[in-house]
């Protein structure tokens, strides 16, 4: 029980520290903005460890963070193979193909107002459907290896990106478009110089949503059949053997990969849309 009380005491102390930090002048500095959530995250881990040790929670219910960390260190080669299979071969190529296809289709339907009025509602609707249900069908078509996972990802990311991209291409103002017209700019010039830059905040919004969907699609598709590695495969088999520490290790990798992908897109966004009001602090 001591472990539990120590953890609770650490939690309360850290929380009091955070309250003080949030009220202090440091909270307005970038350093403070980073420090507070870091302290919070660390105390969650401490509390978790204390709960598991103090209450003697069985490892098949919840392994302690230290056990998971040890598992990660031991199983690094397996985790890397799973990561390469699911993220590098499945999610990222699928994401790039889906985004590319959405870009081409968005420009195509941007040229035709009729198609736009028809495709946008349909696209909006399809984007809200549980597309992940297509996974078993695509696994049937493309086989068990990474191709089917990439295909699921393509389908899942296509519509959110398309809808955002079409909305973004409308984002430039009438006045600006008229100005381009008075300069005698061609369609492509006006697209490249005015409307694509204006669409960028919307496009990145779509890409961010899609980055999470890509990981979900790649992992869920592996539940329907995969080679003997891959994160979805690892999770479903290890759960069957009650190897919860390995499941958590895989989840930790998935969390890192998801956050890294999201962070990467945010960095590119900051670099591309530095002019947008939401980027000013």
């Amino acid at each position, binding site marked *: 029980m001591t472990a539990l009380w120590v953890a609770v005491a650490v939690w309360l102390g850290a929380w009091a520290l955070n309250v003080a930090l*949030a009220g202090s002048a440091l909270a307005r500095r970038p350093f403070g903005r980073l420090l507070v959530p870091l302290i919070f995250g660390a105390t969650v881990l401490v509390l978790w460890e204390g709960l598991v040790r103090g209450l003697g929670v069985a490892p098949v219910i919840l392994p302690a963070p230290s056990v998971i960390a040890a598992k990660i260190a031991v199983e690094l080669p397996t985790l890397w193979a799973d990561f390469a299979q699911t993220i590098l071969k499945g999610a990222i190529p699928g994401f790039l193909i889906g985004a590319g296809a959405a870009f081409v289709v968005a420009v195509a339907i941007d040229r035709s107002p009729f198609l736009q009025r028809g495709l946008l509602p349909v696209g909006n609707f399809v984007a809200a459907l549980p597309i992940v249900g297509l996974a078993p069908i695509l696994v049937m078509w493309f086989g068990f290896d990474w191709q089917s996972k990439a295909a699921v990802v393509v389908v899942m990311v296509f519509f959110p990106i398309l809808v955002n991209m079409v909305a973004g291409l409308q984002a430039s103002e009438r006045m600006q478009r008229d100005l381009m017209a008075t300069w005698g700019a061609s369609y492509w010039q006006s697209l490249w110089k005015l409307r694509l830059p204006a669409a960028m905040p919307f496009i990145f919004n779509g890409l961010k949503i899609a980055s999470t969907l890509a990981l979900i699609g790649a992992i869920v598709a592996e539940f329907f059949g995969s080679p003997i590695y891959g994160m979805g495969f690892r999770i479903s088999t290890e759960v069957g053997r009650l190897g919860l520490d390995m499941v958590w290790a895989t989840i930790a990798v998935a969390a890192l990969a998801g956050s890294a992908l999201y962070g990467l897109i945010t960095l590119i966004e900051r670099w591309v849309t530095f002019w947008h009001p939401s980027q000013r602090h």
Partner: protein
Amino acid sequence: MSRALPILTVLAGIVVIWYAAAVWMNSTWVYDQAERAGTTVSFAEMVPQTMTQDRPLLPPPHQVGAELWKGLFGQAVTSKRSLVYHGYVTFKGTMMGFALGIIVGVALAMSIVRFRVMDMSVMPWAIISQTIPIVALAPMIIVVSSQLGLTGRDVPKAIIAAYLSFFPVLVSMVKGLRSPDQMQLDLLRTYGASEAATFLKLRLPASMPYFFASLKVAIAASLVGTIVGELPTGAIEGLGARMLIGSQFGEPLIMWAALFAAAILAGLLIVTVGLLEGMARRRMGVPA
């Protein structure tokens, strides 16, 4: 009518492409069969054969429609083969997760707007939590909840659905509760309004448009969560379980019918939320 025409055109285009793809993808099997039988088939003979296979690679729309009709209306709604029954199981899970997601999302948003320390410590982690593919947790949540003595799949499914749906609610509600401008807040202060009164009379009403906008996203996410929660768990009820059964027994028609039933359910849910939103807006006196 001028709004419906483009949509109908696009839908008709999709059906045409679908039929063409069905002919193209299913033809391989027809040619294979003919080659095995030592005969040849002409194109005109091949096309009708691609429309009626038992296990087509891509079932043409009318086959899916027929299977869907059979599943929805062909049997008693209590039958294990009825898609209405499976749809109801999924709907129940979706609603539980949706309700849980709204409660968690609104509660977190309220405390984030009220307490600066919550804003600084919880908000970054809420964002990070969404970059984690929670579906990875689905099989584990089910094992753990059965270890804890929770039989049945309702609770684990609801947890997964709630995890996916709380985030849109949280983000919109934080934005909505902060949407009253300084003038309005100052006015209430001059009235000597208490914090609770400010919340109830200004912040909460001001957040409603944001709230309803987020519900459409949240309910779609909740449905996805429920279906995913039904996948890797050996569940035998629900639309996700139907897809898995179709996949395991090599019955594409079952998969497609379940997929379309899920799409119909999603559509109904989104339309219902839209109607509720319209009603609420009228009650609050917003011109439509």
